C-alpha cells in the first residue's frame, strides 16, 4: 500500500513532461452542421496525461462541441481525435475510456445514489462485492458517504453534482470530461466545489478536460487554458500566460477586465498611446507599427499629484468592490481608463496615472482597415459584401466594367444606421470592444461577412443595424 502510494507520487512529481506522451490529440478537427455553419473550425489540441485543461469561451464558441467530439457524442466532420495514440474519431462513446460529468448532472432518476454510481461498473460486469467496494470509495471521495440509498431527486444541486462526479470517477477513466459542471450551482457552492475538484484531480492524477464560460473558474482550476471563439482556438497557455499576455483583443477582453487601446509601436521597447510615449518590454513589432495595447485595471497606479504620472485625468466614478475600489478616470484627450486601487479616489479629483513597462501588453493589430474582394459594375458602382455600392465617378473611370478589384474601407468610415432599411446592407452587432475613447465593433452581415467599425455611438450586442459607406470612403485598387 505504502509502496504504491509512493510510486504514484513519483509519477505525479515527474509530471506529464517526463512521460512525454499525449493522452489526447485533436488534429485539425472541424465540425460542420447541416446549415453549413462551423461549430469547430480546424481545431488542434494536444493534452498531456494528468493535465487539468480548461476549454474557455463564450456560449456558442464551440467548446461544448469539442468536448462532445472527444466524448464521442458527436462525430467530427473532418480531422482526427487520438486517445493514447489510438484513432477514436469514429468510436462510439461506450467504447471510449473517458467519462463525462454532464452540465445538468443527467442522473438516472429511477436509480438511487448507489445504483447511479454503480451503473458503469455493472456495464463492465464486475463482481458484486467489487462494485460495492469501488462505489463506496468513489462516494467517499465525493463526500457522499451515507447517501447510498437516497433517491437522486431528493438531493440538493450540489449533492447531485457530487453523485455525477462519483458516477464518472468510479470507472477510473483515462480522461474525465466536465461540461460546465458547476454552472447550475450558486456562487458559494461553486467556489467550494472548485476546490474539491482541484483536490480530486490531485488525488486521482488523471486528465481533466473542463469546459466553462467562467473565466475566473478557468484561471483558478487549470494547468492550461484553451480560449475559444467562433469555433476556433484563440490561445492556449497557462492561466498566467493567458491573463498577462493575451494574444489578441478577444482574449484580452474575455479574460478579466482590461483597458484596450490603439497605439503605435515607435521602436523596440517604446510604445505610444493616449498621446504619451511609454517604455515597455516588447520588441520585434517594427518601427511605427499600429498595435493594440492592453493594460489591466490593477496595473495602473493612481497618484495624488496629477503632475507626477505619465498621464493625468479626472476621476469620473468610484465604486467599492470589497477588496478594492474601481474607478473610471477620464484623460483630457477623452480616453477613459478602468482602474482598480486599494485606495479611494473620489469623483472629481485630479489624479496622475502611472503604468510600469512590464505591465504593458502589446498585440499586433489583426487588421488596419476592412478589405474585400469586389467587382466593378456599370453606373459607377462596385459590388462587394454581396451588395452594390456607389463609388466616385473619377474612381470608377480608372477601371473597366467587370474588373476584379480590392476594396478598402477604414473602420471609422463605416456608418451604422438604427433603421436597417436605410443601410445598403444589414447585419447584427457581433462583438464590441471598448478602446478607451471609442468602440470597435464587428458587424456580422446577414450573408455572414464581417465589417469592422470604429464608432463613438453606443450599441448593444445583437443590435440590428443598417450599414452605409459613402462613395468617397471606398478605396478601390486593382486586385
Amino acid at each position: 500500500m505504502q509502496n504504491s502510494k509512493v510510486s504514484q507520487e513519483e509519477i505525479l512529481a515527474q509530471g506529464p513532461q517526463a512521460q512525454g506522451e499525449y493522452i489526447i490529440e485533436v488534429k485539425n478537427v472541424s465540425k460542420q452542421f447541416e446549415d453549413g455553419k462551423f461549430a469547430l473550425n480546424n481545431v488542434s489540441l494536444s493534452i498531456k496525461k494528468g493535465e487539468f485543461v480548461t476549454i474557455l469561451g463564450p456560449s456558442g464558441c464551440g467548446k461544448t462541441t469539442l468536448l462532445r467530439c472527444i466524448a464521442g457524442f458527436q462525430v467530427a466532420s473532418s480531422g482526427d481525435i487520438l486517445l493514447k495514440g489510438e484513432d477514436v474519431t469514429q468510436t462510439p462513446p461506450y467504447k471510449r475510456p473517458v467519462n463525462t460529468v454532464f452540465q445538468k448532472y443527467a442522473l438516472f432518476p429511477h436509480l438511487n445514489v448507489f445504483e447511479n454510481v454503480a451503473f458503469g461498473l455493472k456495464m463492465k460486469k464486475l463482481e458484486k462485492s467489487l462494485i460495492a467496494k469501488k462505489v463506496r470509495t468513489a462516494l467517499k471521495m465525493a463526500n457522499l458517504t451515507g447517501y447510498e440509498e437516497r433517491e437522486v431527486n431528493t438531493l440538493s444541486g450540489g449533492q447531485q453534482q457530487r453523485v455525477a462526479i462519483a458516477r464518472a470517477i468510479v470507472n477510473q477513466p483515462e480522461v474525465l470530461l466536465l461540461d460546465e459542471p458547476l454552472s447550475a450551482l450558486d456562487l458559494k457552492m461553486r467556489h467550494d466545489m472548485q476546490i474539491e475538484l482541484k483536490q480530486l484531480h490531485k488525488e486521482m492524477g488523471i486528465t481533466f478536460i473542463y469546459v466553462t464560460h467562467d473565466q475566473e473558474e478557468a484561471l483558478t482550476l487549470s494547468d492550461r487554458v484553451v480560449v475559444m471563439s467562433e469555433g476556433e482556438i484563440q490561445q492556449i497557455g497557462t492561466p498566467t500566460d493567458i491573463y498577462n499576455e493575451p494574444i489578441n483583443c478577444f482574449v484580452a477582453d474575455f479574460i478579466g477586465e482590461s483597458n484596450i487601446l490603439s497605439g503605435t509601436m515607435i521602436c523596440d521597447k517604446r510604445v505610444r498611446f493616449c498621446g504619451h510615449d511609454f517604455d515597455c518590454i516588447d520588441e520585434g513589432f517594427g518601427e511605427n507599427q499600429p498595435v493594440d495595447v492592453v493594460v489591466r485595471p490593477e496595473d495602473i497606479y493612481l497618484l495624488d499629484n496629477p503632475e507626477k504620472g505619465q498621464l493625468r485625468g479626472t476621476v469620473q466614478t468610484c465604486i467599492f468592490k470589497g477588496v478594492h475600489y474601481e474607478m473610471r478616470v477620464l484623460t483630457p484627450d477623452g480616453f477613459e481608463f478602468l482602474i482598480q486601487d486599494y485606495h479611494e479616489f473620489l469623483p472629481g479629483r485630479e489624479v496622475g496615472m502611472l503604468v510600469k513597462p512590464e505591465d504593458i501588453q502589446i498585440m499586433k493589430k489583426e487588421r488596419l482597415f476592412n478589405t474585400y474582394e469586389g467587382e466593378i459594375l456599370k453606373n459607377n458602382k462596385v459590388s462587394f459584401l454581396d451588395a452594390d455600392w456607389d463609388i466616385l465617378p473619377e474612381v470608377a473611370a480608372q477601371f473597366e466594367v467587370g474588373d476584379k478589384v480590392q476594396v478598402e474601407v477604414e473602420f471609422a468610415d463605416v456608418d451604422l444606421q438604427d433603421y436597417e432599411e436605410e443601410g445598403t446592407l444589414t447585419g447584427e452587432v457581433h462583438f464590441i470592444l471598448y478602446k478607451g475613447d471609442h468602440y470597435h465593433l464587428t458587424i456580422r452581415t446577414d450573408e455572414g461577412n464581417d465589417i469592422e467599425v470604429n464608432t463613438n455611438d453606443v450599441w448593444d450586442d445583437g443590435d440590428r443595424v443598417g450599414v452605409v459607406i459613402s462613395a468617397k470612403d471606398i478605396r478601390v485598387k486593382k486586385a
Partner: protein
Amino acid sequence: MKMKKLSDIASSRRTWAWPYVLFLGLFVVLPLVLIAYFAFTDNHGSFTIQNLVKFFTQSEAISTFLYSVFIAVLNTIICLLLGYPAAYIMAMKEFRTPQTLAILFIMPMWINFLLRTVATVELFNMVGIPLGEGALLFGLCYDYLPFMIYPIYNTLQKMDYSLIEAAQDLGANRAKCFRKVVLPLSMPGIYSGIVMVFMPTVSTFAIAELLTHNNIKLFGSLIQDYITTSDLLNYGAMLSLILLVIIGITSFFGGDEEGEKGGLI
C-alpha cells in the same frame, strides 16, 4: 352591501365547484349507486345476492368474462408491441421523424371509433376477408393503438436526452442503454397505455358486434344483452358491477408508479 356579498359568493372557489359536484353526483355517483342497487335486488326490488351467486355458478358468464379478458390482454400485448417501437421512433431525435408522421399515428384518435369500425367492416367485406376472431383483434388493435402510442410517446419525448448519453458514456451500448435507462423511464407511459387499452377493451361490445356479426360475445356484449332484456336487468347490473370492481383492482396495480411522470392520466 348586497352587491359585495354577491361578488364574494361569485368569486369563492366553493361556488364554482357546485356545477361540477352536481354533474358528478348526477352522472357518476348516482348511476353507480343505481348499478349497485339493481345488482343486489331482484325484479320486485327486494334485496338478494342471487345475482352474484348466479355469476359464479353459471358457466356462460364466467367463460365469456375470461374470454373477454383473454382478448383484452392479447389486444393490449399487440398494441404494446406495435405501439412502443412506433412511439420510440417518433420520440427519439436520432431518427429525425417528421412531425407529420407523428400526427398520422395519432390521427385515428380524432375520428369516432364506431365510424372507423363500420369502415373496417366494409373494407373487410370488400376485400373478402371473413369476419371473426381475427377481424375482431384487428379492429380492437386498430381502434386502440393510438391510445397506447400516445402516452408512451409523451413520456419518451419528455425524457432528458442527456440520460441516454450518460448511459452510453458509462459503457452501455444501444441495447443496454435501452434496457437499463429508456425502458424503465418509459414505464409510466407504458402503464398509462396499458390501462387505456385494456380497460375499454374488456368492456367493449360494439366492435365485437360489428366485426364478428355478433357471433363472438364479449363481456360487454353480454351485459348489453341482459340489460336490454328487461327481466334480466338486475343480473346485467351485477355483471357491470363485477367488471367495474375488477377494472378498479387492475388499475390499482399500475397506480403507484403513475402520477409522478404520468403519461396521459
